[in-house]
């Protein structure tokens, strides 16, 4: 219900928000005074002064609108964001298709772990300006959309006009990696498992076919070769050159224990990647990252970022 109301309020929010600055308040007060004097005296030149002030207010609205419109903002991690540690965010502001530069822009965004803000004094028409800002996400999870706002005081600093944006992110905050002493246990757990490197039966790379032996399981039968040879043939595989480590995160699992396990798995993934040791990551019974996957690290970290204690995959990063 709360989420629905939030979505509803965002859907029907005004396209721009306006805040009157201190100077703007003084200006409006002065304008009001001129209006009273004009009505009181009937002096048309005071009406002219009143009109000039109102014209400046309207002009300010036009110019700030020209500055704000068609400016887009994107936020992407410039470094791997891990929960509980500082990361870098690449904020990119572009004014594609604009004829008027974006001037005196200030951007703020609610990213996981808190709010960030930065200033973009001059975004040239058709150009792009990037800033690298620091942020410290507090918890792991996928970042869906980032509520942000672009505001400007251009041109006269009488008003601060803001535009709300929902920036699609799609990236994930990885779990807080456990320290080496903490994640050793997950490797020990892996060592107790059955050795997956049995000769000729396990391995990532198909090597060929050989004759069937009584111990061979039915699933290894090479049906095409059998048909060609006229006798039972089985597939033969070649094992990895380096031994792969299996990292298993139990799921479902009690929540308090699950976060610790995730953290340990994350620490192990980073350490194994650093040392070049292949690994497989299992979430419960589900293999989420194979030892020979090309984007093994990213897949593993994203899976750990979004894993849930009940075994379902997605988790939103807390803000």
């Amino acid at each position, binding site marked *: 219900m709360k989420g629905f109301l939030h979505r509803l309020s965002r859907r029907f929010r005004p396209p721009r928000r306006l805040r009157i600055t201190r100077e703007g308040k003084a200006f409006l007060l002065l304008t009001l005074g001129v209006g009273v004097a004009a009505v009181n005296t*009937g*002096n*048309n030149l005071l009406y002219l002064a009143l*009109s000039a002030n109102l014209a400046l207010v*309207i002009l300010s609205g036009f110019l700030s609108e020209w500055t704000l419109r068609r400016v887009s903002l994107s936020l992407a991690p410039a470094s791997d964001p891990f929960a509980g540690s500082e990361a870098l965010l690449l904020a990119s502001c572009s004014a*594609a298709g604009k004829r008027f530069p974006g001037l*005196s822009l200030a951007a703020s965004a609610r990213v996981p772990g808190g709010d960030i803000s930065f*200033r973009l004094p001059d975004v040239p028409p058709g150009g792009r300006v990037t800033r690298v800002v620091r942020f410290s996400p507090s918890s792991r999870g996928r970042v869906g959309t980032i509520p942000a706002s672009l505001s400007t005081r251009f041109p*006269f*600093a009488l008003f601060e006009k803001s535009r709300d944006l929902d920036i699609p992110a799609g990236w994930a905050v990885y779990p807080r990696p456990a320290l080496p002493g903490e994640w050793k246990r997950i490797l020990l757990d892996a060592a107790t498992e059955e050795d997956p490197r049995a000769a000729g039966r396990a391995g990532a790379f198909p090597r060929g076919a050989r004759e069937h032996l009584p111990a061979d399981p039915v699933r290894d039968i090479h049906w095409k070769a059998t048909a060609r040879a006229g006798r039972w043939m089985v597939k033969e595989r070649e094992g990895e050159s380096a031994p792969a480590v299996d990292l298993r995160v139990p799921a479902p699992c009690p929540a308090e224990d699950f976060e610790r396990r995730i953290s340990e798995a994350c620490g192990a993934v980073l350490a194994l990647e650093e040392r070049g040791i292949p690994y497989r990551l299992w979430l419960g019974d589900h293999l989420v990252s194979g030892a020979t996957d090309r984007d093994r690290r990213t897949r593993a970290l994203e899976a750990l970022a979004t894993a849930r204690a009940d075994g379902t995959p997605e988790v939103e990063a807390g803000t």
Partner: protein
Amino acid sequence: MSVRGGARRIAWWSLRAQWGVGVLLLALFTDVSRGALSVTVVALAAGVAMDLGGVRRDGLSRLGAPLAILILVAAAADLLIGSRDLLSSITLMVLGVQSIGLLLPKRVRDGWQLCAVSFLEFLAAAASTDELLFAPFAFLFLTSSAGAMWGLHLQHEEEVESEKPSGGYDVPARAAAAAIALSGAGGFLLCAALFATVPRLDFRLPLHRLSRAHSVTGFSETITFREVTGVKTSRRVVARVEFPVPPRRPPTALYLRGVSYSRPDAGGWKIARTGTARAPRAGFHYIVGSAPGGVPLSVADITLEPADHPALFAYVHPVTVEGAIGEMLADGEGNLSLSLPQAGHPTMRYRVRFAEEIPPRRAAAPGREFLEIPAELAPESALGREIAGDAGNDAERADRLLRFLRSGFRYTLTDPASSLREFLFEKRAGYCEHFAAALAMMLRGAGIPSRVAAGYYGGEWSDLGRYLIVRESDAHAWTEGWIDGRWVTLDATPPPEGDSPFLVRTGKPGLYLDWVRQRWDKYVINYSLRMQAEAVAGGWSALRRTGRGFRGLGGPGARTPLRAAALAGFAGLGLFLLYRLSAGRKGEAPHGGPGRLPPAYARLARRLEREGYRPVPGTSMGGMLSEAVRSRPALAGNAGRFLDLYHRDRFGARPLSPAEREEAFRLAGTLRRGARSGRAR
């Protein structure tokens, strides 16, 4: 924030210009103490020089508060023992504070305060003047205000930047200047639109108008045959008159009447000042006379320049006066005047409906005071009685007296008679006041009630704005006689000779300048709620006329194919604009995005498709061109180059340079033509 590229310089100068224009406005349009103004100007110049030179004045900042207290004390002293004028003291205080602010180092807040002071100076000037010269300064002030506020905003960002670096502006000086100029122009247009549409309310609460009245002389309590060459050579404009309902006579042949003098004595003619009462009014309509039956009324819109007397001018036989002119007084002699708290009045505009002539009627003769003859003027009245002789009626007697004065008497400004007797019996030369006074006295001698009237006669007709320019030199005096039951205008003054040095016409530039002034008076100074209402009513009736015209197009009353064509044209234009708008929106996608195909590419694709080079709908540009090249090998070179550019343009990481894009479009055109000729063969 570092503001590079000249924007800061332009904004900096705009800020100083705004402060300077404020002081200049005060100097030009108000009576503020010149000494105080001089101090402010010196402070402004010194502040600018020190700001430019980067002189550090941190020590001076500490003096700000004591100096402000000193200024306050000085202003209080001026109020108590000096000028004893509150407005003057406040002005001195504001100028003093401004001078201090201009000298000291300025942070953003100080800049805003100085801008506010400058705006107050602008207001003071606006409240004190209605001169046309104010208009360009108002525009300058508006433009410099836009630049000044931008400058303060930049300065604010610089101060924020020192705490939080983030790059900076890089706006070139030319772009910044153009932005400020455009802001000024846009602001001016918006200002004009707002000025025209803001309802012109006028409640007249306890505060009153501060404007100065400029002296226009020429109307005193007595006609005394004084030296009038100064008045007759003055080119100063007294009034401008438009005629929404034109009179039958030329406007220059109408008498613009101000006051009448009905009490003669040895020294001259005096105003009677009897029976003065408020003219009955309904809203802004004042009833000052009765409309004669069967006589059409003419209408004159009179814009009266500021004057130091309360007389309200109207053409003879006024019936109503309309305008926001406050209380109006009328006496028994047809004299109209304003009820003013001060001696003079500012520029004012009002409408007079008047009858050029009143037909003879039976009405009671005016009182005997209009036949009174002082003993000292007995010879003059006797001359009138003698000349009128035994004529049958008043009109004939008046005509004889007129003919007498028009024969043998000479108009002169350089050597006039000093008294009525000298004029009638010795010199026989004088100007309008001599002729008018002599005729009035002779009429009384002949038994006809009479008085002397003064106002303006003649003027210069401007074809440019179709209005009459009445100048101080058009001041005139004439006689009014009670003939056949109404006051009749009798003018015995002969026209001045053609080579008179007092007859000066305005050149073309002068007329153009006066036209601008007239528009300023009409549409700015005297713009009123009535004019707004008339504009709305006019616009509404124009809309209704247009609506009726369009409704008549489709029905049996459709008269002209031209209207139908106009309707179709408007509809077509609307559809075209709609199309352009939607096309523009589709074309907004940035480079490399899934945007609409540029027109040159789209035309080539359509041509290739029409020529049958697109066998299936999904065929790409490259596929179509390959097909085309197979049937037309000569296209191969251009097609290869074009495809390279096309792919980079549509799908490349970086946009094409303008030259490359131009080449791509050119090649697309060439290929389009080549594909057509290939099919033709």
